[in-house]
């Protein structure tokens, strides 16, 4: 067992390969240097759309300017050649995988063709190209890495075909969907995506994107948006349950990545309470909402809350009623990165640290 799992710090660089007791990181962001990285993986007529001068620059990103000194990245991760933080595998190795002895680490794409709400065939082609790019430039180069399958969810049947195309590669462990605010993925329209995920034994994960909005849309300041965006995951989770996705796909598992997690007790209580009153509206939902959440949904630790009394955080954890629901994540290379050595306060018992830092993700993803 590594010292991190025991809650101790050795101060030594670890390096080496993954083992059954190494830390698992469920949120590392791999970045394109530019969209032209995808050119070798695109056929015409799509390739020309991105390689010409003044061509397409990519799906809409986060609309805010970042107030931090080095933008959205932690300062360590800034590259010396101007390429985006997270675009260099050697830095990911040095600053995450080797530094903390992490492996597996799951790559979470921030490239979401789902946010390109127009030109559906082009969006689908971008998703395929991105998956091929990840496979060749990341997965093939470090066997500690796993990845998420990028899709253009606005074309669910095409997204399902893409899931089938790359889902047989065991290094792809989940389908990633953006926690958007404009549509509920629990609607029947999106069923082919969940059906394909279950068919391929894949988790479906949610992460924010350029399309993530709060309940008031885009508030004036980034700090407002960043504080309130968990509303998007909450709405998607509620939608999956109310839409009967878990009832229809009984093997389906869902991961909420970077949603934060201390809101989960509130949502379970509220949803269960409403279910007792309003079940008649959605009689296809056969169990209490909290039961689906405890059994089928997992959350990433990052961004960990930081209360004055760390014991409060552990009490929130206990309220959820499952030791399995939380999985460690760094969110490298972003400014709200969490270190596996520091993220969990000592209020969390040692055996629970091991589950959160390693075992829970292994059990969930089947590593």
């Amino acid at each position, binding site marked *: 067992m590594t010292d991190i799992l025991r809650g101790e710090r050795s101060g030594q660089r670890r390096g080496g390969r993954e083992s059954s007791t190494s830390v698992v990181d469920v949120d590392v962001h791999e970045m394109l240097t530019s969209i032209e990285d995808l050119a070798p993986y695109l056929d015409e007529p799509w390739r020309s759309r991105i390689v010409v001068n003044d061509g397409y620059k990519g799906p809409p990103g986060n609309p805010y300017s970042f107030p931090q000194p080095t933008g959205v990245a932690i300062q360590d991760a800034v590259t010396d050649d101007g390429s985006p933080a997270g675009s260099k595998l050697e830095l990911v190795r040095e600053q995450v995988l080797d530094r903390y002895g992490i492996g597996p680490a799951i790559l979470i794409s921030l490239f979401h063709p789902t946010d390109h709400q127009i030109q559906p065939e082009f969006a689908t082609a971008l998703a395929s190209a991105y998956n091929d790019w990840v496979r060749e430039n990341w997965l093939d180069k470090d066997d500690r890495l796993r990845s998420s399958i990028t899709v253009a969810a606005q074309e669910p049947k095409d997204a399902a075909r893409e899931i089938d195309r790359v889902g047989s590669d065991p290094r792809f462990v989940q389908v990633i969907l953006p926690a958007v605010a404009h549509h509920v993925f629990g609607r*029947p329209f999106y069923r082919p995506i969940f059906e394909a995920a279950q068919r391929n034994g894949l988790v479906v994960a949610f992460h924010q994107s350029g399309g993530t909005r709060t309940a008031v849309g885009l508030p004036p300041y980034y700090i407002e948006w960043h504080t309130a965006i968990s509303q998007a995951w909450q709405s998607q989770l509620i939608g999956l349950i109310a839409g009967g996705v878990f*009832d*229809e796909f009984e093997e389906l598992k869902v991961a909420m990545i970077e949603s934060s997690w201390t809101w989960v007790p509130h949502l379970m209580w509220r949803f269960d309470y409403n279910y*007792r009153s309003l079940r008649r509206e959605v009689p*296809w939902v056969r169990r209490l909402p909290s039961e689906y959440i405890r059994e089928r949904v997992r959350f990433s630790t990052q961004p960990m809350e930081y209360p004055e009394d760390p014991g409060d955080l552990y009490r929130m954890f206990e309220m959820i009623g499952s030791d399995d629901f939380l999985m460690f994540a760094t969110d490298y290379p972003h400014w709200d990165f969490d270190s596996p050595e520091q993220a969990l306060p000592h209020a969390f018992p040692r055996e629970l640290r091991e589950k959160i830092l390693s075992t829970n993700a292994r059990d969930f993803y089947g590593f």
Partner: protein
Amino acid sequence: MVSRGALRDAAGPGERRHVLCRLEEIPPGTVGGFRAGGRRIAVARLEDGSLRAVADTCPHQAARLSLGSIERMWVSDTPGTHRQSENRNVLLCPWHGFEFDLETGGDPCVPGRPDLRLKTYRVEVEDGEVAVYH
């Protein structure tokens, strides 16, 4: 014709027979509220004419359940579709709409949760009268 004495004898050990009303006072598809032996009891008459008796106080916020309604429970085989169960009947609280299974008294979706379970009573129709035993 059953004698009054025989009806009293129908009560089991520790039970007493309590006559609530005439059967026709509870039309099919309705629920009536009664006091009997110091307890509030709701008696529901299902569409088939049979009776079910449960505690008349909602365990949530103490609403009188007999002011609510009964129905065959809404169920579904496929998301987006609704149908009423052939054999499950529920009592709906008049305040928050909590459902109670009239066979078990429990929440139909959380049958094991004791704090949401209504006490059930044996109810009989005897000589045209509705009687509960407790």
